[in-house]
């Protein structure tokens, strides 16, 4: 049986880079390259000279298939053993599905310096107005978890477990808006379409929830390039702009520096205290001190409602019946961790 070649085809979507190929040195890993047609397929075979435990699977082919429907068809026809980025609505159709809390955090960045969102009560209202559980069920078929009021998953360094989501409370949202004198204010929310899973739909849903508490939500969806112009525009910040932050390092620094910290490439606040905390945390070597700094940063941003925290999206994979594999949080698909049933 070990001599039998196990054919396994895996299918990453065309737009995702598979980072581990740049990392894995050819020749010292459990697999070696046979060939790589860019954008088409990659074939690996076991490396006879590998010093470690021999993996069960002898040969693997990665195929790049852009069209989600075709990926699903390939899985169902028995041509593929594993497909990535399975659309939530397809999960009922696959022989087996694997899902794990992923790296993607959809979030809305609120302008804390100008416009109707300048008032912290308005920003809090915008948080109370959104039913995040409904978003997880409705848009992701439950394959998403409600974000805990921070741009971090529970397993990330810096996660503050004493902070939870703003609960869904449209009444409170309306009263906060009234107190702030902002009932009926117009808030422009900017998003893009087709870059992240359900990116357009989330923005439209959030706008809908805001409408329900009396905000006039203006949705503007831009082509990705134009959207990026606005996200990174340091001169004029949008009232509200949507983004999906993905943090492969599982550490707060990168995303906090970009979005939480004043002057960061995508941030919409000028909170010097918050920026100070983040700067200090970046260079702090004592783990306990560093953790505490991030906890403070999370709490402060939460109290100031600089964002509408939404969800942590799960990575969903479709698998064939014979494949045994658990998905990883860092979204790597390591073939030597996979097993194929006889």
């Amino acid at each position, binding site marked *: 049986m070990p001599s039998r070649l196990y054919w396994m085809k895996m299918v990453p979507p065309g737009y995702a880079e598979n980072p581990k190929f740049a990392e894995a040195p050819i020749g010292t890993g459990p697999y070696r390259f046979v060939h790589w047609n860019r954008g088409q397929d990659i074939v690996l075979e076991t490396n006879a000279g590998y010093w470690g435990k021999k993996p069960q699977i002898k040969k693997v082919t990665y195929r790049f298939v852009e069209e989600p429907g075709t990926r699903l068809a390939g899985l169902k026809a028995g041509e593929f053993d594993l497909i990535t980025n399975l659309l939530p609505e397809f999960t009922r159709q696959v022989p087996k599905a694997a899902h794990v809390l992923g790296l993607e955090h959809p979030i809305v960045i609120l302008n804390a310096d100008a416009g109707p969102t300048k008032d912290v009560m308005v920003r809090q209202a915008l948080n109370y107005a959104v039913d995040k559980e409904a978003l997880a069920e409705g848009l992701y078929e439950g394959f998403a978890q409600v974000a805990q009021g921070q741009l971090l998953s529970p397993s990330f360094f810096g996660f503050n477990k004493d902070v939870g989501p703003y609960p869904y409370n449209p009444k409170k949202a309306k009263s906060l808006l009234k107190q702030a004198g902002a009932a009926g204010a117009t808030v422009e929310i900017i998003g893009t379409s087709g870059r992240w899973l359900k990116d357009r739909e989330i923005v439209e849903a959030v706008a809908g929830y805001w409408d329900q508490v009396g905000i006039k939500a203006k949705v503007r969806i831009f082509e990705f390039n134009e959207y*990026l112009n606005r996200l990174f525009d340091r001169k004029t910040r949008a009232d509200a702009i949507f983004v999906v932050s993905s943090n492969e390092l599982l550490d707060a620094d990168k995303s906090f520096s970009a979005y939480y910290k004043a002057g960061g490439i995508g941030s919409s606040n000028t909170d010097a205290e918050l920026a100070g905390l983040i700067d200090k945390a970046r260079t702090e070597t004592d783990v306990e001190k560093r953790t505490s700094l991030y906890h403070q940063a999370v709490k402060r941003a939460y109290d100031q409602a600089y964002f509408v925290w939404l969800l942590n999206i799960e990575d969903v994979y479709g698998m064939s019946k014979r494949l045994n594999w658990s998905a990883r949080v860092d979204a790597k698909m390591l073939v030597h961790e996979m097993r194929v049933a006889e």
Partner: protein
Amino acid sequence: MGRYLLKRLWHGVIVIFGVTVLVFVVTRLIGDPVKVMLPMESTLEQRAAFEKQLGLDRPIPVQFIDFVGDVAHLDFGDSLWQHRPAMEIVFEKVPLTLKLTAVGIGLAFLLSIPLGIIAALRPGGITDRSTVFFSLIGFSIPQFWLGLLLIVILAVKLQWLPTSGTGTPTHIILPAITMGLPALARLVMMVRSSMIDELNQQYVKTGYAKGIPFWRVVGVHAMRNAALPVVTLVGWEVIRAVAGYSVVVETVFAWPGIGLTAMQAIEREDLILLQAIVFSVGIMVVLINILMDMVYTVIDPRLKLK
């Protein structure tokens, strides 16, 4: 013939140049590859450094002059995505698209002749009406949907054929059908209407009267005269397939031709590869047009040259 060919080639060169200028200008006006290629949370300094590395910080006229000089050598530079010469990628992928187009449109053309003729023989009859009916459906179906439908029925449910990719002769069947079906429908309609016109002509009746066999009158004499609009349409279908529909069909079937590559280049904002692709497709379109013109002169000698 020689002078005509030269004239056509010259027009072709002008068209290609115009297209290339357009692509150069447009992709620089609406896109910024630096923003898209670097990870979302890169700093401004990292972006500036990358831009300099790609030569995109130079003024546009300077970039363009360099560009024209390079194009003359077919040197579009290295693809930003694959880090190898863009034209090399084009040469790799174009044959696959041509293969798919040849099979798809070729079959469509061959099948359209008998189907169109049969419909034309009895206009208004049952065969004719059902031919028209199915043709209308055939070219109204969006190819994207048709491709996925074929995959679901023939590859997933019946498992007669593979779902995507290349490798065996069976891999080309579904993409070729998807490519060719709308073309077949349009061609059938054209053959039919062309033949109806011809079969009403005086010479046809004369032919029968003279005792020429039925199949010769229809298949040779009438067909020859009806051929011109049909051949025009075939040329159009080939061009539309290569320069347009290939993107959709190749994406659905993960068929690694120039259409799929164009799609991937767009997603990755690979300006360099995009320009190479558009330029090459432009050349192919011009060549196909010239080829069609030469075919006309064979079919209808009266058209031989001014």
